Each structure stands twice: as structure tokens, then as C-alpha cells.
């Protein structure tokens, strides 16, 4: 299943070819590293789910993920122990995670999620640990846990952007902590300042440095041209060996008579292109098509000419070189067909509100509709235009519209290239901004592109922009079934990891329903009990010392976990991108820990309210044992989901899993 993605990206690191993914690089780098250390050579193709690994050494990568995944259990144990100081609570939380088939399945394969969950839990644990060191500020363990929190935050963010949520949680915790210190009048302001500085250092500076460092490594390792090139700008591509722009040397400033390619600044639009095919009957004027095309091709070449002179050949060595300047009126002639870039008041083929762009004229002689004003975005008039670096717009002189690409795919007649239009809306969008990429002019001195190479911060910024755009681009289609956030906590539907038919070896990602529904119940119960206690406290009710202590655990510790759950769950409702069931798992970790604390507290409260001490003890022990054994038994029932099952599908009454299909929507 998704191993095809992340395994492949691990291979890319080993092969050092550049690729593009919507997630930050740390997770895939770690997978690559694990593969590298375990002797995987990066040659497996990872083409489609179900392919056999055969002789390839993949166990290192899987083992690494599984190891991180199994660390979640001790982390949960320690976190809950620290929050509640209660052994059974910690045990229950750990058991819930151990016996959850979903967590198990997710951490068995080469995926980013076990790594992400590892960092999230580690950050949570270090935060809790350092909170309990608060009475010994600036001691060694205090510094240790504080910086561990920072490191793990960087890790979480470096694997997926979902790591932002744990950063929010730590941030909230830190702010309330500082607020508390600030209100403590026994502390001088200088001490508070020291506290603030320590946190800024460990929770902001340190993670940022590490996060940036992962990118530095990422770009250093991936120095060969690969499948991800086209997503990035021309300047960016010049960094990659094997790319045509690498180590190329071209003239720096655009001059008349140069042969150029023009690339749209928006990701995955490509080069301005034309070819000897006309727009079909009924679609605008029957003139030559102009499109954008992602691949490099001779038909992407254009010659830049002055609008009024055609006679004097600008390439004539005797004539002086004349540079194109911002605001000049130019004409773009297609090199292969000698037609001019042209636009007129006909509607564009797909975007009806825009004007059609065509190739017009014979041997460079056209009409006044071929004139374009070239403008550099955010520059003064009269400046020269730099190759690669200048962001230019082409404004049609007669209609006043701007050359752009709508990004829509033309039908068959347009060879499924992308539509080029002239938009009358002058709003600046990336669709209508271009840059000059190749530039051939024998009369100008070539300069090495190394001068143009973007600096590291620019590269960092660009890769983030591309990632964000990529993430936004992942939209579900209308008629596709998609997972909705409200499906997740009720375990509405799982995800098929491998195998479809009854003869296949099938793995199905589904939470252990007993665990998940217990978690759901616990959250509801927690809200009721928590608000009851909070109201009682606010009303000034006098609680017995024991209940007071328990309610503190419930409100403080449980509150933090609830916040974690809320932060890792609710933002998904706002996301427009396509969502999957496994996005819920970080939230599920928090809710499992909350369950541990809640039930332990409830049992203690129940035991306390009973008169006789032996009965109370009995209730407490039986309750805890019951919960533990119940989850263990349910795991025994559902373990084939994670470890794989063969045989008829569960819809079939003959299947051994038939009795376990508690919801009709589970299709294992």
C-alpha cells in the first residue's frame, strides 16, 4: 500500500535522486538511512502494491518503523505514570496501545506514521517530564527534558506537518507555565526573563535549527536530477546534477534576437509551447494552437523580437546588441513555425471568460495583435530583464489582457497539453507570471549559472511553498468515496493495506473496536465528570482530601491529554485536502492515555465511596483487571486484521471473521 510511496522515497535517498513529496523530508530520510544501514541497495522499484520484494533487503526499513512503533507503548506508560502517579492507570494506557490492532498494523510497515507518532509521543513525554522538574529549575534533568522536548518537536514537524499540532500543545503548555511564573511575585523579573530565554532557546531556536538542518541534509544528499525537478522553479533546478540547467552557462540579460524558453512560475504548468496544429472548428479562430507543455522540446523555443522591425536581422553580427527592457513592446516568434504569439477577442477554449491565444502570421509578419508589453513584476521601468531570476508578465497591447495558463487540460485535439489564455483580470497570480529559462544568443557573453544559484534560505522557502501547494492540490474527486473525520473515532471504516480477493493475504487497518469505543466512551465520560468537578470547585464545594487529589489529576493531567486529542483531531475538519483514516492515529494515542487516567480515577473514586476497605480494594482490582483482560481478549479476536488473514471475505458467512464484522462498513 503506501509503502510504495515511502519505500520508493527511501530508495531515492539511497540513489541520491531528487524527488518531490508533500511531506517534509526527515521521515523519509530516516527510512532511507535505515535501509542504507541494513544493506538495502535502493534498486527495488516499488511500482504497485502487492509486488513481491523477492531478494531485496527490506527488513531493515520495516524493522526500523516497527521499532519506533513499539516504543509508543513504553512512552504512553511513562507519560501516564508521570501525569497520574498511578501504576494501574499507566498499565491500562499501555495495554490499550499494545492491544490496538490499528497501531500495530500501522507500525509494521514502511510508513511515515510510526515515525511521526514516535516523535509526538516523545515530545509529549519530555514535556510532561520537564513539567515535573519545575520545582528544580535550571537543574540538569530540567535542561535535559526541556531540550529533548525541543528536539522531538523538530522531529515531529520534520516528518509531517501534522507535527504542528504537538508544537501548539507544547506552546500552550509553555505559555501557561510562563504566565504562572510571571504571576509569582516572589520571583524577580530577571529570573522570569531567564526562564523565558531558556524556553526560547530550547523550544524555538533549537527545533528551528534542527528542522533547517534536516533540509540542508536533504538538499545535500539529493543532488541528482530526478522525477521531482518539474515541480520546482528554473533556478532551483540548476542545483541538480543531470538537469540541463546544471552547470549550464547562458547570457544573463535578455536581448533582442535571443532564442528563449518561457516557463510558467506556477508548479506543474510548464513551458509556453506551440505546434503545427490548428484550433479545431468552432473553438475560437482557426489558428495555430498555443499551449503549455511540461517536457523540454524544440517547440518550446521562441525568438524575442522588436514589435516594429522585422527586416533587419538582429542576429546580424554587425548590429549592436540591444537588451530588452522592462516595459518594452515586443513580439514573440515561434522558432519552428515562425508564427507570432497572438491574442484577440475570441473566447478561450476552456476558460470562457478569457481570450484565446494563438500563433498567427507568416514568417514573422502578423498584425498589431501580436504585440505584447513585457513587464517585470515589482521592478522599475527601463531595467534589463534577467534570465531565470526576473518574474515577467506579458501584457497584450490591444486588449490589455495578461498571458497566463489556466492549468486546465485541453481535450484530445490539444494533445492533452494545458490551455494558455489571455486573462482580462489583471490580478497578479502565479498563473500569469513567467520566467525565461533557456536563453541562446551567440553575441552575448555566457555567464555561469552558479551566480544565479539560489541561496539556502531561498531554496528552503521555495520547497515549502511547493509542498504547501502540493498539499492543497490533493483534492478528493466528487464521485469518490472519501474518509470523513467523523468516521474516525467511531472506527467507521478501515483501510485495506493489502489484498482484495478471498485468496489473497489480507491486512486491514482497523482499530480494535473494543479499545476505540472504550476511548470514545471515555472522552464523553471525561467531559461529564470533568465539568461536574470543575463546577463543584467553582461553587466552592469542600472536597475531601483524597477526592481533591484525584480531581487534580483528572483536571490537570487529563486536561492536557484532552487538549492533545482535540488538537490532533479537530483541525482535520477544516482541511480541504483528501483525508485518510490513519490521520486519526496521533489523536488516538492521546485518547488512549486519557482513558487510562479516567478509568483509574473513576475506580479509585468508586473504591473510596465504598464503606468497607476490603470491598473497595476488591472493586478496584477487579475493575482494572477486567479492563486489561477485556482489551487483551478483544485483541485475540481481532489480531488477524493486523497479522494478515487468508480465506473468504468477512461478508461471507463461512469466513472465520464473519462474526467479527460488527459494522456493515468494515470490508475485510
Amino acid at each position: 500500500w503506501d509503502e510504495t510511496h515511502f519505500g520508493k522515497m527511501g530508495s531515492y535517498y539511497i540513489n541520491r535522486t531528487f524527488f518531490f513529496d508533500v511531506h517534509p523530508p526527515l521521515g523519509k530520510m530516516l527510512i532511507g538511512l535505515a535501509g542504507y544501514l541494513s544493506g538495502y541497495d535502493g534498486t527495488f522499484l516499488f511500482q504497485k502494491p502487492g509486488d513481491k520484494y523477492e531478494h531485496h533487503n527490506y527488513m531493515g526499513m520495516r524493522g526500523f518503523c516497527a521499532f519506533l512503533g513499539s516504543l509508543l507503548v513504553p512512552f504512553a506508560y511513562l507519560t501516564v505514570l508521570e501525569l497520574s502517579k498511578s501504576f494501574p492507570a499507566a498499565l491500562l494506557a499501555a495495554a490499550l496501545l499494545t492491544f490496538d490492532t490499528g497501531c500495530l498494523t500501522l507500525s509494521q510497515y514502511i510508513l511515515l506514521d510510526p515515525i511521526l507518532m514516535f516523535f509526538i509521543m516523545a515530545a509529549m513525554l519530555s514535556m510532561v517530564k520537564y513539567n515535573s522538574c519545575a520545582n528544580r529549575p535550571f537543574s540538569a534533568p530540567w535542561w535535559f527534558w526541556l531540550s529533548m522536548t525541543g528536539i522531538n518537536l523538530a522531529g515531529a514537524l520534520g516528518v509531517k506537518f501534522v507535527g504542528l499540532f504537538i508544537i501548539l500543545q507544547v506552546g500552550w503548555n509553555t505559555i501557561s507555565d510562563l504566565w504562572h511564573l510571571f504571576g509569582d511575585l516572589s520571583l524577580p523579573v530577571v529570573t522570569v526573563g531567564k526562564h523565558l530565554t531558556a524556553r526560547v532557546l530550547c523550544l524555538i531556536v533549537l527545533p528551528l535549527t534542527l528542522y533547517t538542518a534536516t533540509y540542508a541534509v536533504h538538499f545535500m544528499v539529493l543532488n541528482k536530477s530526478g522525477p521531482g525537478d518539474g515541480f520546482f522553479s528554473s533556478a532551483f533546478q540548476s542545483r541538480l546534477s543531470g538537469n540541463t540547467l546544471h552547470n549550464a552557462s547562458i547570457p544573463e540579460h535578455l536581448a533582442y534576437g535571443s532564442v528563449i524558453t518561457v516557463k510558467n512560475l506556477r508548479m506543474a504548468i510548464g513551458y509556453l509551447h506551440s505546434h503545427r496544429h490548428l484550433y479545431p472548428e468552432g473553438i475560437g479562430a482557426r489558428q495555430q494552437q498555443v499551449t503549455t507543455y511540461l517536457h523540454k522540446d524544440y517547440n518550446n523555443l521562441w525568438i524575442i523580437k522588436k514589435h516594429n522591425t522585422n527586416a533587419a536581422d538582429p542576429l546580424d553580427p554587425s548590429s549592436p546588441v540591444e537588451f530588452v527592457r522592462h516595459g518594452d513592446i515586443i513580439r514573440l516568434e515561434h522558432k519552428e513555425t515562425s508564427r507570432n504569439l497572438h491574442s484577440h477577442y475570441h473566447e478561450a477554449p476552456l476558460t470562457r471568460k478569457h481570450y484565446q491565444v494563438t500563433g498567427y502570421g507568416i514568417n514573422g509578419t502578423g498584425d498589431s495583435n501580436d504585440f505584447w508589453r513585457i513587464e517585470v513584476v515589482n521592478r522599475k521601468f527601463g531595467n534589463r530583464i534577467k534570465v531565470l531570476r526576473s518574474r515577467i508578465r506579458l501584457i497584450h497591447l490591444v486588449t490589455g489582457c495578461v498571458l497566463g495558463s489556466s492549468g486546465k487540460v485541453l481535450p484530445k485535439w490539444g494533445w492533452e497539453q494545458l490551455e494558455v489564455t489571455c486573462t482580462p483580470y489583471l490580478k497578479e497570480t502565479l498563473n500569469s507570471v513567467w520566467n525565461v529559462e533557456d536563453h541562446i544568443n551567440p553575441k552575448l557573453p555566457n555567464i555561469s549559472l552558479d551566480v544565479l544559484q539560489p541561496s539556502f534560505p531561498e531554496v528552503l522557502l521555495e520547497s515549502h511553498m511547493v509542498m504547501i501547494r502540493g498539499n492543497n492540490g490533493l483534492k478528493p474527486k466528487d464521485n469518490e468515496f472519501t474518509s470523513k473525520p467523523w468516521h474516525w473515532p467511531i472506527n467507521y471504516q478501515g483501510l485495506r493495506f493489502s489484498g482484495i480477493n478471498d485468496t489473497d493475504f489480507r491486512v486491514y487497518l482497523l482499530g480494535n473496536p473494543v479499545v476505540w469505543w472504550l476511548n470514545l466512551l471515555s472522552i464523553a465520560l471525561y467531559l461529564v465528570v470533568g465539568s461536574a468537578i470543575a463546577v463543584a470547585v467553582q461553587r466552592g464545594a469542600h472536597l475531601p482530601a483524597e477526592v481533591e487529589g484525584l480531581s487534580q489529576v483528572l483536571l490537570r493531567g487529563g486536561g492536557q491529554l484532552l487538549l492533545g486529542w482535540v488538537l490532533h483531531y479537530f483541525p482535520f475538519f477544516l482541511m480541504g485536502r483528501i483525508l485518510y483514516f490513519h490521520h486519526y492515529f496521533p489523536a488516538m494515542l492521546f485518547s488512549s492515555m486519557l482513558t487510562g487516567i479516567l478509568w483509574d480515577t473513576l475506580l479509585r473514586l468508586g473504591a473510596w465511596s465504598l464503606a468497607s476497605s476490603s470491598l473497595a480494594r476488591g472493586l478496584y482490582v477487579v475493575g482494572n483487571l477486567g479492563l486489561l483482560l477485556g482489551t487483551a481478549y478483544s485483541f485475540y479476536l481481532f489480531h488477524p486484521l493486523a497479522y494478515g488473514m487468508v480465506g473468504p471475505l468477512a461478508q461471507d458467512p463461512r469466513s472465520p471473521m464473519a462474526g467479527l464484522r460488527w459494522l456493515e462498513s468494515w470490508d475485510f
Partner: protein
Amino acid sequence: QSVLEDPLLLFYKMLGYLEHPVVVTADINLNVVALTAVGLLSRLWQLSYPRAVVFDEVYYGQYISFYMKRIFFLDGSGPPFGHMLLALGGYLGGFDGNFLWNRIGAEYSSNVPVWSLRLLPALTGALSVPMAYQILMELGSSHWAATGAALLILIENALITQSRLMLLESVLIFFNLLAVLSYLKFANCQKQRPFSLSWWFWLMLTGVACSCAVGVKYVGVFTYLLVLAVAGVHAWHLIGDRTLSNVCVLGHVLARAAALLVVPAAMYLLFFYVHLSLVYRSGPHDQIMSSAFQASLEGGLARITQGQPLEVAYGSQVTLKNVFGKPVPCWLHSHQSTYPMIYENGRGSSHQQQVTCYPFKDVNNWWIVKDPGRHQLVVNNPPRPVRHGDVVQLVHGMTTRFLNTHDVAAPLSPHSQEVSCYIDYNISMPSQNLWRLEIVNRESDTEVWKTILSEVRLVHVNTSAVLKLSGAHLPDWGFRQLEVVGEKLSRGHHESAVWNVEEHRYGRGQEQKEREVELHSPAQMDISRNLSFVARFLELQWRMLTAKSDGSEHKYSSSPLDWVTLDTSIAYWLHPRTSAQIHLLGNVVIWASASLATVVYALLFFWYLLRRRRKICDLPEDSWLRWVLAGAVCAGGWAVNYLPFFLMEKTLFLYHYLPALTFQILLLPVVLQHISDRLCRTQLLRSLFGALLVAWYSCACHVFNALRPLTYGDKSLSPSELKALRWKDSWDILIRKY
């Protein structure tokens, strides 16, 4: 004058004397009266000019016409209350709904009562002026500050433009302000006399105003949430008040819950109830709704389905409509043409008869439900109904071929199976035409398949594929109809795999010829069905929320970042001959100073907050509380009405900022008064500050006056004058070329 200045105090003083006997105390604040008067003057001035469709009136006008003609429509942009208010204006003005709303700038015909249509937005816009005054008074500001706030609202050009047309922003702002005002009045009553008549009145009014705001536009929900949050905090303090008994606290909490949660929900339902009872005729938007919903409207589908037999039986003739209905609503269809032997990309097909989904009524949409065990295609007497779980065959009425699917890749979705009407070519490809019927919305496992009401999935018996609309358009060989496939992996229940019977009749004809005649004749029989209100409400609400507005760019669309700096504008209307025009532009002075005030407030707030934490109190407790409350209402109101737009993906316009701006303007006098009272320590400074304020206000008046021709559109300016008004390059003022 001094008596008038503090009417509230006077009122409370008087209350002390006049206790039990019923006494009417009329106390008229001349200030409020005067402000209302100028507000009305500014908003109602030449209201019916221009007598032409201005900007979005073109949309709202359509809906008004629909109301006048009682035709059902669906508008995804907002709940129906706002449209109904506009329609009320039309009703009072005697509008018959006959006007073609198709073009901005089209001249109104004489039957359109422009004045009364525009009256309601204008009135609400005018009333916002005195309400601003009242809100600031309730926030504990001085009489001067309150008057200042009202005067600022009065001369804000964008607010004036927006309230003089058939648009809903001014109505929304009115209800937002009303909600805040009545909550503040309520909170002040709380201190004096809880559970008194006025306490109840203001509490209920808060709930009603909140629901009205939400009912006008969904964005009203943000103000509602703000009011809820403030009320929640106040209630929490109340719970902590140990002088009150438990019963008393419980009463307080319950009263608030009833007024702020139950009443708005009930009101919201009421809007829809009125809406649905007003628009009961079928119209152009029917197609989007489910068959059941359409059947509940007068005319349209109901005319056809009225009198159909309810239970589908073996031998029934049916049309099957896809429940999901996207990209277009359509019916299961087949026709004589076959799939091309080889597709353009080289894949092969079964070359059997095409099965598609067709968005128009057609005789080829008819299918006959057949019992696989019998040969007959007619309904027995008595009819044998089809139940959940039964295995059926579907026979295409006109060609008598069987609906079939097999392990051949579908034309456009190669991962799914092709669906065809089976033709026996004698090439060892047996027909696989058994389908198991699953009723999705069944209540029991033996439920009967019902016309319109039952939503069914057709599961192929041999391959367990599900009949599904893939949403792709077939190329020319398929006449651009929609592709229907057998989806092998039923990845959960998606509505595109669910169908319902729309038209239905019991087949009587034994012979094919008789059947064809039957298929061509319209269905007629008895019984009629009606959906419950709740079901209709839920469906309508769901469709409204999921209705996709075409996210196309618009010439005047803008991003929220442009709004704060007023880096955008909207041309609303241009006179057909002169260059008189209406242009949505804000009063830059007010705009800028309001933003500045917000920043100053935030800085001061955090400064005070930090110092208070170290036990340095710059402000006495009660004025600190007032300062916080003013910030929560005004700065908070600005934030909740502004920030969510950054997350929205729809096309945004400058006018979306106006509710936020109104709250920001209310904050301005609060901050100014605070500076004058607290930060100007000497009398001299204070007088200087006052002089500065006068200068600043006259500056704002000057800007108002300069932009007035664009606000009212009554005066044609020369090109050079217009150019001079173009203070920012991003303002797109239209200049006629002569």
C-alpha cells in the same frame, strides 16, 4: 442637556420612586432621535435612484421574484431569512415578480417597486447608527464617545453604499449589533434586577437577534459564537458567586441555555418552515433535490408521480435516478448503440449495448423489474412486491435487453467493470444479469422496495460489483452521456452507487408492441406522498451547505489581506451615458484609524495585563473590567468576523469585511476616550487631544464628502475629477473614454 445626557441614570433614579404601580415612563433621548434622523436621511436619500439593477441585486432580485411567484429555489450562499426579508419589501410594494434579472445595469420596468425593495436594507442600515450609540453607552463609555461612534458609522461610505441597495450586509450588521446591544443591556440588568421583565426581554432578544443574524447569512454565526462565549464567561463567574443559592444559579444557567441555545435553534427552524411553505411550486432548481423532495412540490415531478403505485413489484416499469446526482442529476439509460469494439487508447470492449446515465427524461430511461424465475414482464394480480435482498433482473424497456456487467474494464474508469445491456454474440461470454437489491435506508430486513422513498444499491450477484455513476462524460460515441460502471470494491457507502425509483407504473402489456405504447404514455394512478417538514429541512439544509458555488475568479474579488488597507474596490453600477457611478469604497480615514485603534488597544491591553500580573494596577478594577468587556465585544467582534475568511475557499469581496469593520469602528471611540481620560494627564494635553480629534473628524467628513458622488452615484464627475479620486492604484474607478 445634562438631564438628557444620562438618561439611564435618571431612569434608575426614577425607578426607586416609582415602584409598584403600573406607570409608563417615556423617556426620550433626543440624541438617539437625532442620530436616527440623520441616519435615515443618509440612507434613504434618493433611495430609488438608480432605477437600474446594481451589482448583486441581480442575484437577490431573482430570489425575490421566486418568492413572489412562490417557486422553489436553492441558494447555497445563505439561509432563507435574509431573502425573505427582501421579499417582504417586494410584497409590501406589490411586486409581482415579473422582471428578468439577467444583467447588471438593466433598467427596472415600472412594475418593480424599487423603493420598497430597497427600503428594508436601508432602514436597518440607518438604525445601525443609533445602535452604535446605545452599545457604547452600555459599555460604559461617555456620552461623547458614544455619539462619536454613531457619527463615524454615519459617514462610512462603504456602509452607506451597501445599505442603500437590495443587499444583505446591512441587515446582517443590524442583527449583529442588535445581538450585542441586547446582550449588554441584559448584562447590565443582571447587576440590578435579575429575572425582571426587562431582564427576560433583553435575554430573549439576544437569542432572537442571534438567530436572525445567522438566518441572514451564515457568517452571522461568528457573532453568535462571540455572544455565546461572553455569556459563557459571565455565567461561569455567576457559578463562582457563592452568595447565590444553588437553585438560583441553576435557574440562571437554564434561562441562558434556553434563550441562547433553544430559542435560536427554534427560530432557525422557523425560518425554514416559513420558507418551505412560501415556495411550494416546482421551479428551475428542482433537479438538484432528491425525487422525494421534488414530489413534495406542486407541479413538476409531483404532477408525474402523483398517483403512482407505492410498492415496486415484479413486472413494474420504473425509471432509476441516481441519488448523488453529480455532476448532473440523471437517470439510468440505455439505447441501441453499442460500445465501440476498440477504444481510442487501444483497449477492447465487449461491444455490447451501452448503458449510461442520461440527464433528461426519455423513453429509454424505462426499465422493467423482472423475476429471474419467470418469463413474464407484467405485474400479477395481486402484485408481488420486491423486497430487500431479493435477486432481480432489470430489462431495458425499449430494447428488452438485460442489464448486465462482467469482468471487462469500463470505458473511462478502467478499474471498474463495464455495465452493458447483454447481447449474445455466441462468443463464450455468458450473460451475468442477476442483481441483488439492497435497500440502504431500510428499517427492517424484509422491507418492500418503495417508489421515490427507497434508496437502493444494485449489487451484482456474480462479481459483487455495485452499479455506480462514475461522474465521467463518455466521448462522442456515447453521445456525451455519463458513464455507469460496476464498482468492484465498494469502498463504503457512497451516494453515487445509490439509486431510487422516480417514475413507476405496473406493466400490463404482454407483447413488446403494447409495452412500447405503454412506455410512451404518461404514468397515471393514485396515492400521493408528502415528506415531513424535518426531512425536507434536513435535505434542503444539506444541499445548501454542499452546493458548490462556481469558484471562478471575479474581476473585483479580493483577498482578506487587501481589506484592512482598503486595497480593493468594487464597481457596482455605471450610468449608461454619463460617468455617474456607484463604487464600493470605504472612508479611508475611518478605515485606517480603526485599524490603528485595534493595534493600540491590543498593545495597551497586553501592557496592562502583564502589569496586573505583577500586581501593578494602572486601572481601578471596575474600569479594567469595562475596558476588557469593550475589547471582547468590539475587538473580538472584529476578529471573529474577519479572521475566519482566511480559511474560506470561496470567492471573497470587499463587502465581506463590512461586519468586521463595524465592530472595529465601535472600538475606535473606546480607545480614544481611554487615551484622553487615562493617558493625557494634564488638562492642557486633554484639550489638545480634543482639538486633534475635532480636526481628525473633520478630515473624515471631508473624505466622506469627496467620495460621496461614488457612494450615491448621483453626480457625474469629469474624467479628471475621477482620476483625482483614484487615491490608490488598486482602486478601479471606471472612467469613460469619450
